[in-house]
């Protein structure tokens, strides 16, 4: 894992700023989820807003050295993408239920960012991963080496 640029710093205010900022994104995700739940089919497009919030949390957390937050946010992001394209109401409902778990845990971990990932979080991650797999798995990803190859292939 990348060295944590924040934890190496002595500036506690910087860490608090980071936590506050991520809490804001988590709150936005929570409000979005409530709106989806109020009209599962009519507000299905809001899954995109939720996935964007999770993406932002993931990107910031992974760079600043909070992998436990990033891992669950990543699962939330991918499950929200599945929710957006789900055609059956039962699937949408399952996604919403799973996203509540992801959202609640992400928010908890942001607030308690110094805690290690506990057994409960690991169980949740396994459950979310199983569900994501059942829905066809995450979108195809590339790593930095593949990106280099794609850039070189451009000529």
């Amino acid at each position, binding site marked *: *894992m*990348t*060295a944590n*640029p*924040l934890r190496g710093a002595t500036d506690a205010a*910087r860490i608090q*700023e*980071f936590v506050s*900022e*991520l809490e804001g994104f988590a709150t936005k995700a929570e409000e979005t989820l409530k709106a989806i739940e109020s009209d599962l089919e009519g507000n299905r497009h809001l899954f995109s807003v939720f996935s*964007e919030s999770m*993406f*932002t949390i*993931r*990107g*910031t957390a*992974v*760079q*600043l*050295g909070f992998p436990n937050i990033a891992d669950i946010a990543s699962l939330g992001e991918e499950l929200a993408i599945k929710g957006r394209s789900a055609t059956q109401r039962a699937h949408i409902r399952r996604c919403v239920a799973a996203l509540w778990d992801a959202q609640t845990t992400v928010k908890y971990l942001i607030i308690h960012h110094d805690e290690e990932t506990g057994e409960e979080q690991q169980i949740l991650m396994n459950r979310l991963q199983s569900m994501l797999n059942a829905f066809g798995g995450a*979108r*195809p*990803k*590339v*790593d*930095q080496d593949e*990106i280099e190859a*794609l*850039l070189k292939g*451009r000529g």
Partner: protein
Amino acid sequence: MGRMLLTDLNVLVVDDVNSMRVNIRDLLKAAGFSTVRVAGGVDEAKKLLEVETIHLVLSDLHMEPLNGLDFLGYVRGHPLYKGVPFLMVTAENTKEHVLGAIVAGVDDYIMKPFTAVQLQNKVYGVLQRKKVIGT
């Protein structure tokens, strides 16, 4: 343009997350760039381009209402800025998005998480390929 020193370069960091802007700015300063401008969105970045000579752009991909690809398209389509080296800095690693950035003309693409050394290597590489700095 003649070859320049790192301390002469004006770098623009565009990210809608303040923590990321601060992190990238600090890493760039540690790498020897003395002037690093930051913008919280594309509109702010465009305004900075208008008033300052920018030698390198590091932009996030996912931003609202305009995103990094919108900004890249603006830069590449502008007669004054089209040659400015442009590095996409993002956690987005879906093939679709990466290819989109490459097709749109990004000079390089760095995925989070990255270390100071990885960022430095990417930035130096882009600046050398674009002949902004010497090898």
